[in-house]
């Protein structure tokens, strides 16, 4: 089920902050009209309302939670500064696997679709796979 849509503006200053934090010195990331880095859309959490997250109102035990994988897909170039995006977050699938050290692991794949507000074009999708273990996570 999809959560409520949210708006996000790709901003030059935020792109620059993100690019510097991820060790970029690329003028295409740092200039006045930058293109966003490969993982920049992670910063959509600054724009999401609680109601636009699939986790709204759901208690998650962070000591038993792992970020398993993260994938981005762009349908053209990554979005540039000035782009207005609408994001919609939804749970794509949930499945269980037996853990190597006993216990169950619950995998949840959450997708966010980002569309250009002006054209309606699908710009990018983000897929986050999180793993909740039935036992505490070992460091």
């Amino acid at each position: 089920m999809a959560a409520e849509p949210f708006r996000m503006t790709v901003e030059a200053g935020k792109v620059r902050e993100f690019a510097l934090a991820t060790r970029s010195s690329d003028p295409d990331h740092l200039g006045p009209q930058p293109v966003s880095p490969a993982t920049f859309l992670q910063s959509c959490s600054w724009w999401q309302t609680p109601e636009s997250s699939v986790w709204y109102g759901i208690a998650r035990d962070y000591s038993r939670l792992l970020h398993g994988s993260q994938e981005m897909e762009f349908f053209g170039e990554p979005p540039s500064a000035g782009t207005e995006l609408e994001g919609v977050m939804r749970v794509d699938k949930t499945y269980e696997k037996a853990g190597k050290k006993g216990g169950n692991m619950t995998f949840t794949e959450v997708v966010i679709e980002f569309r250009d507000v002006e054209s309606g074009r699908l710009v990018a999708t983000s897929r986050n796979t999180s793993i909740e273990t039935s036992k505490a996570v070992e460091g």
Partner: protein
Amino acid sequence: MSPAPWKSSGSAVPTGDVSTVPTRVKWDDVTVGLAAEPFVAPPLTITDFVRYQGASGDMNPIHHDTEFAKASGYPTPFAVGMLQAGVLGTYLTDWFGARSVRKYGVQFREQAWPGDVLTYSGTVLAVREEGDERLVDVELLAIRQTGGTHLKGWATVSL
């Protein structure tokens, strides 16, 4: 050993530790098996984690609050996986260009810790043309100083 005293440079731009100005590979020079020169990053610091957490909005205290990390059963805060995934993304775009990325994914393996020295590397897996797009598939790695794999990554770029 106590850390060196912190001196502000008067700028929020990190100095001396970002990758050098990128050199872009050209389509005609891309072949299967081509590898970029590995990037050995300076040791991870909690300051790196804080800078990334502010940038991304992931404020989970387990990455910067020692008391919180200990109460959760960890000896110290541990690295934000998405920071290293971001650095690996920069490694990719330094190689092929910021506008080239079409797919980029990472799988998180071993955790990384403050003080870890990570080596980022990449190899071309396939070169193909689809319609009028020239695509390159790449596999990427971030390896800890122990030899353990922190990240496995994959990407498709359009040149």
